[in-house]
């Protein structure tokens, strides 16, 4: 089985190609990320594994939330690659990918994900018992009250450290924790295992922030 995973939704960009050789991955961050390097990274992993896009059985991707243009680049790339060879796709919330990664890394099932959404807000979600809940756009002072048994992850914990920890009651958090495409592969495999094959047909973004235009007072 060959699965490609792609994430460009936040300040990082990563691809991972799953094959009988395991996961072959690339990860970049910052300025490099914003320069549209996703396909050159795909080139690298495909030639390393020695297959072509035709050989894919599925594509897993982050569908947002995140930076709007990053989210759309991710969706656009997945649309293009999948259309070419009619490859089934499966999208996951950026918050779920981060939550899943953190749960695995810290060996807990109580994760509070906060991604910096700019404009004084965070993309917020709870990852518990292998499920994402409470996915929303919030003011940092409006998050769930949780407690010490939770671990906070994501850039929101850097941008709004104090308010978030006060409100949530979480004192253990890690701000530089990003989505990883390797985790997308795991999520894809778990999903296929549990629910059989799946295809979301037309990959589309999740923005969470929707008040993006003001109507003119004509």
């Amino acid at each position, binding site marked *: 089985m060959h699965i490609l995973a792609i994430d460009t939704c936040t300040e990082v960009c990563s691809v991972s190609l799953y094959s009988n050789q395991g996961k072959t991955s690339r990860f970049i961050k910052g300025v490099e990320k914003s320069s*549209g390097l996703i*396909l050159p990274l795909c080139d690298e992993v495909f030639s390393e594994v020695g297959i072509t896009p035709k050989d894919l059985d599925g594509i897993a991707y982050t569908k947002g939330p995140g930076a*709007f*243009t990053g989210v*759309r680049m991710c969706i656009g*790339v997945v649309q293009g690659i999948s259309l070419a060879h009619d490859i089934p796709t499966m999208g996951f919330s950026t918050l779920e990918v981060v939550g899943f990664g953190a749960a695995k890394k810290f060996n807990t099932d109580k994760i509070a994900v906060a991604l910096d959404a700019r404009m004084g807000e965070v993309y917020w979600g709870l990852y518990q018992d292998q499920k994402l809940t409470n996915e929303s756009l919030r003011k940092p002072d409006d998050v769930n009250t949780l407690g010490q048994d939770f671990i906070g992850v994501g850039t929101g914990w850097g941008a709004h450290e104090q308010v978030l920890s006060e409100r949530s009651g979480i004192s253990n958090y890690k701000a530089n924790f990003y989505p990883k495409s390797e985790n997308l592969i795991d999520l894809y495999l778990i999903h296929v295992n549990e629910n059989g094959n799946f295809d979301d047909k037309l990959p589309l973004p999740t*923005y969470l922030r929707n008040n*993006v235009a*003001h109507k003119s007072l004509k």
Partner: protein
Amino acid sequence: MSTKVFITLGIESSCDETGIGLYSSEKGLIAHQLFSQVELHAEYGGVVPELASRDHIQRTLPLIKAVLSEAELQLSDINGIAYTAGPGLAGALLVGSSIAKSLAWSLDIPSLAVHHMEGHLLAPLLEETQPEFPFVALLVSGGHTMLVDVKGIGKYKILGESLDDAVGEAFDKTAKILGLSYPGGPALAALAEQGDETRFKFPRPMTDRPGLDFSFSGLKTFARNTFAKYPNEKANIAKAFEVATTQTLMIKCRRALEQTHYSTLIVAGGVSANQSLRKELNKLGKKLAVNVFYPRQEFCTDNGAMIALAGHLRLIKGHKFITNKITIKPRWSLEELEAV
């Protein structure tokens, strides 16, 4: 040239229309479809870039599928993909670019960044009777007003351009002043038909001195002031505005033709749909013994057919993007293009 058929898929997403076209070296334009976002932006009184991008990402893929099935072709029949890389709205361009580059990458075929205005400029070549090089091109759209010396594909020299508002923009803004619904250009033109040409005389900006540059923002102000004084004479104001703009464009076209000694003029971009502009320029053509060409009405405004054609003419000559990077050029001059 090889006799093998080459088919180019064109993707346009630079502003508020998603356009897809298929151009074949054997049959010419074989299919094209357009989704216009006009209604989406109407309630905001102008294009909202973020909403435009959000719409493009939903429309592009279904539209590609629709065009392929209209042409009864498979993706495997496509030999190259051309997409608008600029100029235009960055977020909107990025959608077309991401899809085009990744689709081409996945199909293992070449992709090419197309200059939106070259698309407009070459649109008359989609018609049966085609202009021959060299020619003067008048490009008049919502974002651009320019006169270009066209010696061949990619051999462009800008002779003059607008120093402020583009002419389409001036139409839209003046229409808004008159309380016409968005997008105002066509509405203003329709209203002008009922106007009396002799009632008001608006200035012909920058025609009293040499040069081929334009300025249209003053006309809009003139219209506003006139409307404040004569609120019941909308049609006459629309007429005066239209006459002033079309005559200004005509005067500059005449200068450009005299200066270059070319005997062909092509007119493209959204405003080239304007009937009184066409009348004025046809008259000029007769007087100077110059042939005037326009795209058909539906290819005056943004569309995928012109992007497929412009890309096609380069792809068949081996032009292509050598990087797989997803790149856009929101600002991009026609003069930077490579000659074919």
